[in-house]
């Protein structure tokens, strides 16, 4: 099994295997070229992850410092005076004109710019229900219509905010907006980690119906510590 293989890789690297299991794994590595190559890639991925995250703060500091030094280095030479020719004024004037047109005729943001959802990972915590698995697969394949009946079956036995959320998203995507709103409102009244996601989804439902005013009002109720507040902020900006 693929999953067991990766778990074994990680346990080996973390030094969590018994001596026996470790020797057995090393033996397999020496015999199986394909496994060894995969293990090499796995190790490389770990190094990349370390580089990406462990040094993130260092990298930011380095980049900032680099920019300052670079500016110091290049600035002294940048004092050339550029003479403005008449045709340049023409261009500048037309740019201002175009900008004006753009500003006074702003386009409203569209639902399609914001309906990107995380994948559902619902079946990894112990008991696996076939319906849940099907729902997850259909959802992640963006086949929302197909996912809906599976979610409905699952929710009859096992109601969790997480499953409800993905059910709601499927409804929203399938244009069953009222039904979707009912589901999101129910999550909203609870206290799960999906609460803010549900409120955001309610705003998206309004956006989909081009009800910009309600969309904005709902967005304003999302607390700023919401994990995807940047999207909220961006959408609010565009609605203004």
């Amino acid at each position: 099994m693929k999953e067991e293989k990766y778990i074994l890789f990680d346990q080996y690297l973390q030094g969590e295997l018994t001596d026996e299991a470790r020797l057995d794994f090393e033996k397999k590595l020496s015999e199986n070229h394909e496994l060894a190559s995969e293990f090499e890639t796995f190790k490389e991925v770990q190094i990349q992850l370390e580089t990406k995250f462990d040094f993130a703060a260092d990298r930011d500091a380095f980049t900032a410092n680099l920019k300052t030094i670079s500016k110091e280095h290049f600035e002294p030479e940048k004092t050339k005076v550029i003479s403005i020719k008449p045709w340049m004024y023409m261009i500048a004037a037309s740019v201002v004109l175009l900008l004006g047109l753009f500003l006074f005729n702003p386009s409203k943001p569209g639902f399609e710019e914001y309906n990107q959802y995380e994948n559902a990972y619902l079946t990894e915590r112990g008991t696996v229900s076939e319906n849940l698995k099907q729902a997850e697969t259909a959802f992640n394949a963006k086949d929302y219509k197909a996912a809906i009946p599976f979610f409905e079956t699952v929710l009859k036995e096992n109601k969790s905010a997480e499953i409800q959320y993905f059910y709601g998203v499927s409804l929203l995507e399938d244009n069953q907006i009222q039904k979707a709103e009912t589901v999101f409102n129910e999550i909203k009244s609870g206290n799960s980690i999906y609460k803010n996601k549900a409120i955001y989804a309610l705003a998206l439902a309004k956006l989909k119906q081009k009800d910009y005013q309600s969309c904005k009002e709902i967005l304003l109720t999302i607390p700023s510590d919401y994990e995807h507040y940047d999207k909220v902020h961006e959408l609010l900006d565009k609605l203004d």
Partner: protein
Amino acid sequence: MAKNTVHPDQYLIEGLANNDSAIIRSIYKKFVPKVVSYIRNNSGDEDQAQDVVQEIMILLFNQAKAKQLQLTCPFDAYFFLLCKRKWLNELKKTSNKAVTISDDFTSTNEPTAEMVSQTEVFEEKQQLFDAMFQRLGEKCQEVLKWSFTLKSMEEVAEKLNVTYGYVRKKKSLCTGQLTQWIQEHSSFKSLKK
């Protein structure tokens, strides 16, 4: 990784990795002017030269931090060739003019060419990795991010409000998913020596 002896200029690489301002300034003073004049003589301007230099410096920082940068040739030639090739690639991307970058390596001695190609391979792998990482689901991204930021998996579990067993498993599986995609990616095969 080359097993040749490390060149004395390695201190410049260490300086970059340690964000040592004096070293960074000295690189700008000693090695950057040559890059700038090359780019200005090849359809570029000073701003573009500044960008190329910054990109290469950040690349070297990353490679050094990943402990994969052991200089076996003089920094001067290595740095110049990296910037030059980056610039020629930029030109190739932005213009329709045919730009040939084929025979750069012929005029260069071998350790330098070898060093430059190591760094370029590192960059390509990093770009591939970043692209694949973006393909992961939100939960995977989150678990991996915290797994490689916080000190222990217990802290990660606490942070994400899930069990230790769950984050451990998720971390292994998400790293595994990346492994699988990268293995499948054809360019990885050609990059892997």
